[in-house]
């Protein structure tokens, strides 16, 4: 099993006092499997994704990824995990504006020490980014920027891909194309995919679907 999440709790301090976002969530995911996380706004989908990605730490519970308990890792350990095992696709793309498209795509692979120019060429080609490689992110459309972000995430061939509403900023047609590409490339790499989405259509294309309500699995 690639991912095993057990009894996760997370509380945030807000202006109105403590707010418990996650209340005992659990889930599993195998390598090569795709899972959609759906739910209303504030149900805890993104928080759960951040915890699994090592971007934040749970108050209680266990997240076993490839046999390692993420919740027990320190800051450096979680950085190692984000660099080598997990890849995250953000809704806001989070590209580095001062780097060209080619450098953005290669960035995480270089960071992880798994730079493979042939694989990057395949990725760029499949994503239709070859003509854009010399441009800067601000010169691309939103759909193109998201494809760059996906290529960057897949470049080091991570074991687990986490996607936080990756098509939330895109129109329906572009979202569909981007999603097709992501699913295809995830299949090629054999990674597990956990995707947060509001879209029933996109969720329907995943192998499994988990619905959250008020911090718990519905």
């Amino acid at each position: 099993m690639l991912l095993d999440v057990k009894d996760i709790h997370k509380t945030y301090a807000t202006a109105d006092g403590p707010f418990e976002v996650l209340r005992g969530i659990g889930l599993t995911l195998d390598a090569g499997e795709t899972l959609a996380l759906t739910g209303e706004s504030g149900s805890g989908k993104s928080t759960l994704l951040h915890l699994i990605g090592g971007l934040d730490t749970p108050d209680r519970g266990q997240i076993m990824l490839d046999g390692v308990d993420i919740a027990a890792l320190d800051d450096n350990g979680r950085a190692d995990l984000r660099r080598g095992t997990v890849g995250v696709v953000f809704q806001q793309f989070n590209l580095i504006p001062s780097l060209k498209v080619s450098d953005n795509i290669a960035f995480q692979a270089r960071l992880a020490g798994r730079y493979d120019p042939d694989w990057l060429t395949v990725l760029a080609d499949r994503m239709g980014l070859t003509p854009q490689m010399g441009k800067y992110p601000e010169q691309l459309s939103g759909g193109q920027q998201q494809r760059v972000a996906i290529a960057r995430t897949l470049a080091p061939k991570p074991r687990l891909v986490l996607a936080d509403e990756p098509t939330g900023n895109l129109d329906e047609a572009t979202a569909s194309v981007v999603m097709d590409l992501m699913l295809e490339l995830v299949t090629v790499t054999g990674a597990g995919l956990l995707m947060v989405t509001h879209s029933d259509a996109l969720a329907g294309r995943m192998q499994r679907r988990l619905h959250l309500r008020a911090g718990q699995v519905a």
Partner: protein
Amino acid sequence: MTRATLHALLSHWWRNPLQLFTLLAGLALATALWSGVQAVNAEARASYDAAAATLGEGQYDRLTRRDGQPMDQTIYVRLRRAGWLVSPVVQGRLDGVRIVGVEPLTAPGGIGPVNLSQDADIGSFLTGAGQLFGNAETAARLPDLDVIISPQTAPGTAVTDIGVAQDLLGKSGRIDSLIVLPAQPQGRPALADIAPELTRQQAQGGSDVGRLTDSFHLNLTAFGLLSFAVGIFIVNGAIGLAFEQRRPVVRTLRALGLPLRRLIILMAAELMIFALVAGIVGVALGYVIAALLLPDVAATLRGLYGADVSGTLQLRPSWWLSGLAIALGGTALAASGALYKLSRMPLLAAAQHRALAMAAGKRALAQGAIAVCLLIMSAVLMVTADGLIGGFTLLGALLIGAALALPLILDQILRVAGGLAKSVTAQWFWADTRQQLPGLSLALMALLLAMAANVGVSTMVSSFRLTFTAFLDQRLASELYVSTEDARQTAALIAYAAETADALLPIQSAETDIEGQPTQVFGARDHATYRDNWAFLQATPDPWDTTFAGQTILINEQLSRRAGLDLGDEIRLQDQTFTVAGVYGDYGNPIGQALINEAQFFRLYPDVMPDRFGVRMPAEKVPEFVAGLEAQTGIPPSQTINQAGIKAISLAIFERTFTVTTALNILTLAVAGFAILMSLLTLATMRVPQLAPAWAMGMTRARLGRLELMRAVLLAMLTAIVALPLGLALAWALLAVVNVAAFGWQLPMYIFPWDYARLGLFALLAAALAALWPARKLARTPPADLLKVFSNER
């Protein structure tokens, strides 16, 4: 990982060259001002050290005659025979060069031309064949003499054998002082038994010139530090903005797995590389500044203190290194806050908005609290500060406190103005200005410091000038001053003046110590010139009557302050006691001065012969007097100087002092103007999202540009209003605390409203010029860029 990260970090600067330029230029300018001033100081100090090494100044005890006059050479022979290990020194001036004669065989090591050049004939030096040693400048001033170039020799000084010096200076058989070697044989007779006419001056561990000029250099260093502080404000602003702009990238890098520690190390390394590059450029610029300032500083030091400083600059590794160190240290100081914030920045921003807002509020509160503490501290120091350290602590607390308080003061003014605004546009303008304030506050702080320094220093300098001009009118009352070269000329002058002038007033002085302070005692002839012209800071009802009656003594302010002497205190000169009857202002004189009546002076110092005289006569008769003087006595016009001439020379010396401070003033203001320009340019890009809604709602781009320009001028004007009282407080601290501690006299403070108004206009002009380009840029922002604000794709 490191390479990829560095590439990502550095790419920010290539994509934002203006920001990189701001950072490098700010740091380079700050370093340039600092290292320029330090280079001038280092050059001057090296000159003093060379001079001190030449004469062993401050390192060895010396024997001199009690009346300060040269002694007969036989005294030296007498002391050597009695077992005293002493070495003779003769010194004097020839064509403006200080000639120093030493005896190489008896002089202690380290004195004299120790670094003989290869072509020097040591034999001829020892046998008195006439060789002198001096640097190239000195050699050029003595074309008729055989001067061997020795770069290590002090500027303006030529060293030679004692016999040669005696011949050149017309002091045959006479010496000025005897150096007492540290190791002396036991059981030698006491000095009072062999040479009772001599007195022993203890070594003071440093050169007199070095101590006298320390305060001057301290002031220069303080100015350099202030300029550096202004520069560091720019660097801080540039780094802060760069970090703010890179915040999302930093989050992305961390989200992609870059460890925080490595990120901070790499960002710090990146800044240090920039600091090194800017530091090298800054030190090179500093060299140019120093080369431009040094001739004026050298002239000032020569005029004020008689200190010879080389007018040319040498490249010294110490100030290259100190310049680079200050650039690196300054960058570390400016970046430490930004790096600390980075290390505390949460990886996920969204959940922390409120916490960040609360933290910003707390920071403003802490800044306000620190500002209030510093301003209270400066208020307390204004009453209690004593000495240079207290004075500079006062200045530091005042300036930093005011700088920290400025954004809070401006924020309150803008809040009130916003509340009073009637039209929607005005309300938006005030609210938007207030919102922009944090981004501009560092540049405005730099402007505040620069303006306050300008107001403060120009007030001090102008007050100095007014006081000094009035002082010259009082002290240079005689219409003509004549110097004589020998007793024959003196006698001829006295005879000639008796027939042709209203009065002849000898100017005669002897060196002595009063209460441990080196002092020149003058003997004054009873004449109305003194009674009519001299003004006292404090005096008994009839100071001149009692002084000319031989009962009292008049002292200058420096001696009064340093020796703690007040009216009614007693001063002992040899066997006679005098009561202090008056304290007079004596601006520009570094040492103590005392004045007694002529008869008493001759009794105490019988060997002193006057060789300078003030001549009283109607001013229109001066040319006729000078012509007749040469015809009848052979004293040429070159030995005379009229009142107007001497005033012009004295004022010229001070003008050169002011040239240095004025140059630094202008540079500091220019640096502040640069800070505003760079802040506005950097902010201009970030302003688009704030201006786009106003444009969308019907304001033209041209109007937005005009409002941007107005905003910069308005903020500069408000800053100028705050800078005025701060500058006046700075001037007061300089005049009443620092000046007294550094120079020993207090100056009255005058206010110069027109100068301040002009400075204010310059500041507004600088702000307007600085804002013009960014405003024009904003006014020409393509509509497509403004529209992007409303698009998700931005």
